[in-house]
């Protein structure tokens, strides 16, 4: 999935503890245009629930949330 999507902003959230990965995605979402995508890489497993919950409750979209070894990789699309 991640190979097909144009990424507008990369966020390195490795080492940040929850809820900071979600906070950083939220703070940066307006740095991409509507329809734009953030690729965020976190290491705290709590982000696997936090970032999708944030996206749902703010009306944005998580295109994918995948575990890759010790990292959690998210593609988050700004919808509004």
């Amino acid at each position, binding site marked *: 999935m991640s190979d097909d999507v144009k990424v507008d902003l990369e966020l390195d959230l490795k080492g940040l503890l929850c809820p900071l990965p979600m906070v950083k995605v939220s703070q940066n979402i307006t740095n991409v245009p509507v329809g734009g995508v953030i690729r965020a890489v976190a290491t*705290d497993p709590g982000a696997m629930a936090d970032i999708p919950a944030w996206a749902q409750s703010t009306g944005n979209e998580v295109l994918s949330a995948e575990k890759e070894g010790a990292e959690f990789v998210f593609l988050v699309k700004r919808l509004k």
Partner: protein
Amino acid sequence: MEAQQLTTLTGVIDKKMNRQLKQYMDICARCAICKDACHQYVGTGDFTYLPARRAELIRQIYKKYFDKAGRFVPALYEARDPDENLLDELYESTYACTGCRRCMYYCPFSIDTAWILSVAKAILIAAGRGNEMLGQLADAAIFKGDNAAMFEGVMLSGFEDISEEVRAITGNPEHQVHVNKEGADILYVALAGAHSIRPAAVIFEEAGESWTISMFEAANYGYFYGDAEKARLITKRYIDEAKRLGVKEIVVPECGHAYRVAEIFYEAWSGEPMPFKVSHILEKVDEYIKAGRITVDRDKIDGTVTYHDPCQIGRNGGVFDAPRDIVRAVTSRFVELTPNREQQWCCGGGGGIVAMEEFKDVRLKSGGKKVEQLKASGASVLACPCENCRLQIEELNEVHGLGLEVWQVIDLVVAAMPFKATPEADAATM
């Protein structure tokens, strides 16, 4: 300001102002003793952050609409409308406040400025000016509670990974993070991060505790945001879970406000007494050490260790001795910060401020007193049982080059526990 909005805002004040708060409106002597108690005023010298000034903004609206003298001669009594200028000032002084209540401790009338500012937050939210980030964090937590099934898979897989790490640390193949265990004695409501679960699981398992993990986290951004209903819903998620599982006790993690929310605020928000005994995890760990249920080797930790009382656990929660007894059990090189306990300086990281980028500058300046205390202690290791405090102090550590190691207390305990385990176990504890 439109008449309709004015009615809404004054309605909020009318609803929130109980007898105690009204008394606070009247008794401030403007002695300014509180100014030297507030780390933000001391760190910035900015009037916006002077505790009595923060409260004064609410007092001015109150005088204008609810006080006879202020209503008739507003200029004389500094009564003001909640216009855009006042709301701008109110936003800055209210959401910056870490709720540490050090000002209240030193105020000759024990005026609780943080409580007055809970009225300010309600006004700001009603005016559509609540802090956006804190509101989003609260909404995400409520969404998780309403859609628990959606997150069950990722949570369970996360717990399984942590169980493996626990087994690697203790060397005991039976050890695990228990999930949905009906009839367990304890429901441990952790933070969202693995760091809050892994060492607690090691300790519970080694102590032979009957425990189970909550599917929800103890952090409550509804409280920081200032919306009592959101805060209640976030807390209710794990209270309902505790009822369903039939546990006897709820244990909250190394987090400052989580303890106060469960122990003190839930009842006020819900009108229902907290139906469970609530303990801070360090109270349990202290019990286990004193009862010999876990063993710790003294002096496995290198360096001189000091302890920071998070405001919500110490001054506002009354837990002072259990953490110190634990730290003293793992090191003979313990030194106090000065001042400490009730008089401890706020580190500057509470109240949700670490999540609000706009306050970064005042937050870092307000850590000046903590930096002075840490330097004066000569310690190289800091034990600190609150996530927000640790985030702040780690940043101060970097900015001021303090060379400090900042630890959760339960991580110090795990590092001091003798395990049968392997070299990988030692690596996993770090």
